[in-house]
């Protein structure tokens, strides 16, 4: 079969969508075979997206940071801090002011990250590893190591309405996530800001010599990442009206994994927020599937890690820029066809 497949349908360009589809179909088939109906039901699918929403939200902002050529490990800690601020302040000032306060705090941490990386010149990995640890410590100090809870019923109602309300069949977090993703996607692809963001990550020196403020764009990406993490934290706080200080620990790795599954380059200059969302959905579909199949949490990490490395391997092997250097497997239409060709 020598048919040329359009680039955007190729494994490298659209692989994460194929993977998502494949996993859903596989899980649906297994569920049907085991006599557990309803995997493909709207309720379950919407539930997967709902669960994935906070990670997808942070993943979209993370993708922007990665596109500019940086890295943000601090998102989960920042989300926890924002959750603590939200719950701590909501009784006194009301829901919306508390939300703004939480976002302001989260954005400030993003700004701090950006300034340390771009203006002081410390490596992003080190800076955000530092803020990951320090901000988590700050959360523990602020909460005294105990769980926080919303006290006033009015505040609790406002929070649950914000998080658990539905528009049609869709819980609000899905809509927040979709709106944010769409907005970032539009900005990245149809505005000068987006073009310059890609240029900054693709070749910082060239961007600088074109008169683009490299520092500005990179710091801006960190602030966006902080704000998105803050919003995810507010969603988390609002879901339960309470939080414990170790909430969301380790989530930053899931967020980064979602971006990598979506094909975002760790070296900057390339990445798609839509594919990051698909990457988050892949991870949560797997989690959801393990729950439904009662496989237990033990297998989960193993499988997810394997999927991540497999995805990265496909992207790396498919990176050949010149057509003749591109391995043929990248040009065939589906993963099954790949297996057929390589006789696996």
């Amino acid at each position, binding site marked *: 079969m020598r048919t040329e497949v359009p680039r955007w349908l190729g494994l490298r360009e659209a692989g994460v969508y194929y993977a998502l589809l494949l996993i859903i179909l596989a899980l649906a088939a297994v569920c049907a075979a085991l006599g557990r109906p309803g995997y493909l039901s709207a309720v379950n699918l919407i539930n997967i997206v709902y669960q994935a929403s906070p990670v997808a939200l942070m993943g979209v902002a993370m993708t922007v940071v990665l596109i500019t050529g940086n890295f943000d490990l601090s998102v989960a800690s920042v989300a926890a801090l924002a959750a603590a601020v939200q719950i701590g302040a909501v009784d006194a000032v009301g829901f919306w002011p508390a939300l703004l306060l939480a976002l302001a705090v989260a954005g400030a941490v993003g700004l701090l990250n950006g300034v340390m990386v771009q203006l002081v010149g410390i490596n992003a990995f080190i800076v955000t590893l530092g803020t990951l640890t320090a901000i988590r410590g700050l959360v523990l100090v602020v909460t005294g190591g105990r769980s926080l809870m919303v006290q006033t019923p009015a505040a609790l109602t406002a929070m649950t309405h914000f998080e658990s309300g539905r528009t049609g069949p869709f819980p609000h977090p899905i809509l927040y996530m979709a709106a944010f993703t769409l907005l970032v996607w539009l900005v990245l692809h*149809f*505005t*000068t*800001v987006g*073009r*310059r963001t*890609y*240029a900054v*990550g*693709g*070749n910082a*020196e*060239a*961007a*600088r*010599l*074109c*008169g*683009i*403020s490299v520092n500005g764009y990179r710091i801006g990406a960190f602030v966006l990442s902080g704000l998105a993490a803050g919003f995810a934290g507010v969603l988390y706080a609002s879901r339960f009206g309470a939080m414990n200080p170790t909430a969301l620990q380790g989530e930053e790795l899931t967020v980064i994994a979602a971006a990598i599954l979506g094909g975002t380059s760790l070296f900057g*200059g*390339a990445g798609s927020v839509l594919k990051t969302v698909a990457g988050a959905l892949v991870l949560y579909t797997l989690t959801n599937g393990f729950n439904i199949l009662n496989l237990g949490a033990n297998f989960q990490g193993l499988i997810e890690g394997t999927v991540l490395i497999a995805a990265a391997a496909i992207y790396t092997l498919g990176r050949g*820029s*010149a057509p003749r250097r591109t391995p043929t497997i990248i040009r065939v239409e589906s993963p099954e066809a790949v297996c057929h060709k390589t006789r696996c």
Partner: protein
Amino acid sequence: MSARPLLQLERLEMVYPNGTAALRGVDLTVRHGTVHGLLGANGAGKSTLIRILSGATRATAGRILWRGERVSWSRPAQARAAGIATLHQQIPLVGTLSVLENVFLAQPGGWRHDARALAVRLRRLMTSIGYELDMNAPVAALPIGERQMVGILQALAAEASLIVMDEPTASLAAGERRLVHRTIRRLAGEGRAVLLVSHFLDEVLALTGEITVLRDGAAVLSSATAALDEPALAAAIVGRPLRRTDARAAANEPGGHKVAEIIGLESPGRLAPCSFEVRAGEVLGIAGFLGSGRSELLHAVFGADRSARGEVRLQGRRVRRSPRAAVAAGIALVPEDRQKQALVPELPLAGNLTLAHLGRFARWGLFLRAGAETGAAVRAIARLGIRTAGAGAPVSELSGGNAQKVSIARWLCGPTRLLLLDEPTAGIDIGARAQILALMRELAAGGVAIVWVSSDLAELAAAADRILIMREGAIVAERHARETDEAELVLLASGAARGRPDVRAEAG
């Protein structure tokens, strides 16, 4: 000395797979205990010769006799083992390791275990050349001149009998340069041989006993230094009849209005205070060799050098010192390294073209107009004859000449008044080179002021209107292109005697 020379090259030829003949039968003889100078313009074949001697590539024809025996090296380790050490322009040292560790890096055996013995050895080496270095200092902390000395010590530690030095003093200050000169003399005094590649004619004349000049891949002059002088060398390097009228339009009198005025522009350690002006329609050439400060000057004018001080005025108005302000004011820089400094590999051709003046291709400066971008790209492709699959093609697939055209065309998308070109014709084929020179003259005719850096001095003499000559970070002379030629430029840029009084007083 002994009857048998240390190294003899006989009819050495090198033809690259793409058909370029870099060496066309070069004969060269290096004797024990002598310093042999190797001169030639860019592209004459010096680098290829060095690569063959260091074992990095194999000659396609001819013989190499080492101590009278025929050899054929295919790996650098073989040349090193035989006793040839090569000091490249960019010395490959490990910045995080100490001087001691770097000097013995290439040595076989576990240096970690006998550090003390090595320290004694290094001490003895340093005494022998009369130069002391802190052997425990990390190499990254050393100034460039001392790093050069670490490279020389490395060659000594390998007990090389022939040391090939590729432009060892190009980026050094005067004091460091003297140190290298002294070391070279000592090496010869010890009976070692040195093959010295340098652009500085005075340096070569002072240090060497014999000189070979390469031109277009052939040895055109081979003689004892005593029988030569600077004009003879310059003539041998240049050789061919000058192409004075190639690209230049009818004598371009500087009648245009003053576009740019540079006043006391300097950068500590890189650039001595420079002042000059460029007029509309004028192509101002900057002549100078590697390390002369020519790129640094352009970056300072563009505001890309943060530590630069001084004033750049464009049409009478002072430009704030940042690339952003420069672009907004109408200054454009086509940098030397296309891949590293100009092109964004992830963006298609159109995206690379519009990057500097992106606001002009967007509604309200924000929403991109894809049609306008594609249109501009299609026009640029047609105007400059860029060979590509189209506006959406990746720039990574462009050849050197076409990539350079994109890098220049980027600045034609906006209101460019002062165009700074840094080696726009380096490393590209002759057809694209002619097109770029023609484009440059066309833009000048349209009223753009152009500052053009080139190390191809013949090209400068042929296509510029006026030429500033740089050496060691300063403008040392100025010539009207009609009144000079390549040979004189070589003399001026290499710091040799000045043929006649300058058009203006010497700067800096």
